[in-house]
């Protein structure tokens, strides 16, 4: 049997985690979750996910941005620099509105894609399939 692809959901809202997990599992993905950036980092190493869904605002304002940058660029995460990351955020995507980000916003490496929260099941699955084929 072929191994299922693994998705890591990093989000501090347990309800959101649960809901998204159900959607992903119904599409035959294996799902692991983390509730904060630290746990997220640990899970990346231990679980080696094929793709990461990442919330932007967790404990502190810009967790998602900096975590994304770290995963994409740091030596520590060398093995995972190419792992696709999708931002999932209640900050309106359509208007492209962004946070005010104290100065060093420039030069931050962003995600591979964005989706709005709440996520539409079909949009979520289509977006994921852009990056990993089952």
């Amino acid at each position: 049997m072929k191994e299922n692809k693994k998705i890591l959901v990093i989000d501090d809202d347990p309800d959101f985690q649960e809901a998204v997990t159900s959607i992903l599992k119904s599409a035959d993905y294996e799902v692991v979750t983390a509730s904060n950036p630290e746990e997220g980092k640990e899970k990346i190493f231990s679980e080696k996910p094929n793709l990461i869904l990442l919330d932007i605002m967790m404990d502190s304002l810009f967790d998602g941005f900096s975590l994304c940058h770290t995963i994409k660029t740091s030596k520590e995460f060398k093995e995972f620099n190419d792992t696709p990351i999708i931002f999932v955020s209640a900050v309106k995507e359509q208007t492209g509105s962004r946070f005010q980000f104290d100065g060093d916003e420039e030069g931050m490496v962003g995600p591979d894609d964005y989706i709005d929260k709440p996520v539409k099941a079909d949009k979520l699955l289509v977006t994921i399939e852009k990056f990993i084929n089952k």
Partner: protein
Amino acid sequence: MSERKPLVLIIDDEEPIRNACSFIVKGMNCDTALAGDGEQGLKMIKEMKPDISIIDLKLPQMDGFEVLEKSTALFPNMVAIVITGYATVDHAVEAMKRGAFDFIPKPFTPEELRVIIKRGLDRRSLLLERETLRREKKLLEENFITIVSHQLKSPIAAIVQYFEVILTGAAGEISKETLDIITKAKIRAESLLNMVNDWLDLSRMNHQQMGEDIKSVPLGKLLEKQVGFLESLAGKEGISLILEPYTGSDVVQGNETFLDQLFYNLISNAITYNKPHGSVTISLKTEKDGVFVSVSDTGIGIPSEHLPLIFEQFYRVRHKTKKSKGTGLGLSIAKKIVDSHHGRIDVESKEGKGSTFTVFLPKTFHKTT
């Protein structure tokens, strides 16, 4: 994260004193760096950003006072301790005035130095803590509305997300009746979410200085991006979005986030109040002092008696053919944004035929004083 040892920089022209100080300080679980003159000392302060600097006041070339003054101006959170050569109180007082935290007269015993370093380290952690708090407070202030909006939206988003799980069948089979009810509940929750979004957009605009973050914005690219975002919404109704080719410069000065929002509101209206398989045409025209953008649709139009009112907050037209599900804030937000850029927004419409919203944005941004 590994805790870094505190770094103490010692600036003194006498090598034996430098070395002795360094030896004592290292014994206190600190790292040290040494400089033999003022110029070198200042350079090292800039490069290494020490936690504490011990500065001999009497130095060749650039004297200790100058080093003290320059470095505390650059790094107010650095703790500076001066060594006074002769037991003159004057020098010490002068040094304190210029930003030194404390002074130690020569000659001094190791114990005397240790006591002063210890106090310096305490002072340093206090300063750093204060700095962190100050920064956090600033971040919170700047992003107050973002935070509130996050708090307000998260629960609604979670509710909608659960409905979505039920509706996709991921939680198991449900009856047709339940499905209908959940669908209705989800629509209401979604419109609540939209309303909160609109409200927050509006308050963001009242609070945040519209004149902030002004830069050159290429409108063509911005419109392309919005068309990209909105394509799926349009696709559902079979509506085509057309961005016409343009010539000339499309660049205006403005706040990109707000301009994004402006055109999002106009284009999404043109889709929402369209007819099935209609179209939305966006065109861009360059004039001498600015750029015209028009968003034209083949939709239901707006009866002329309503036209003067549609830019008012919460105003919605009761269309015969289409019930508006919006809040009635989109156009008032659009108008606010245009006004803040000292532009103009106009509308032409024929009931049953379609509407054209035209925006003029001046090339240069004039800050309101």
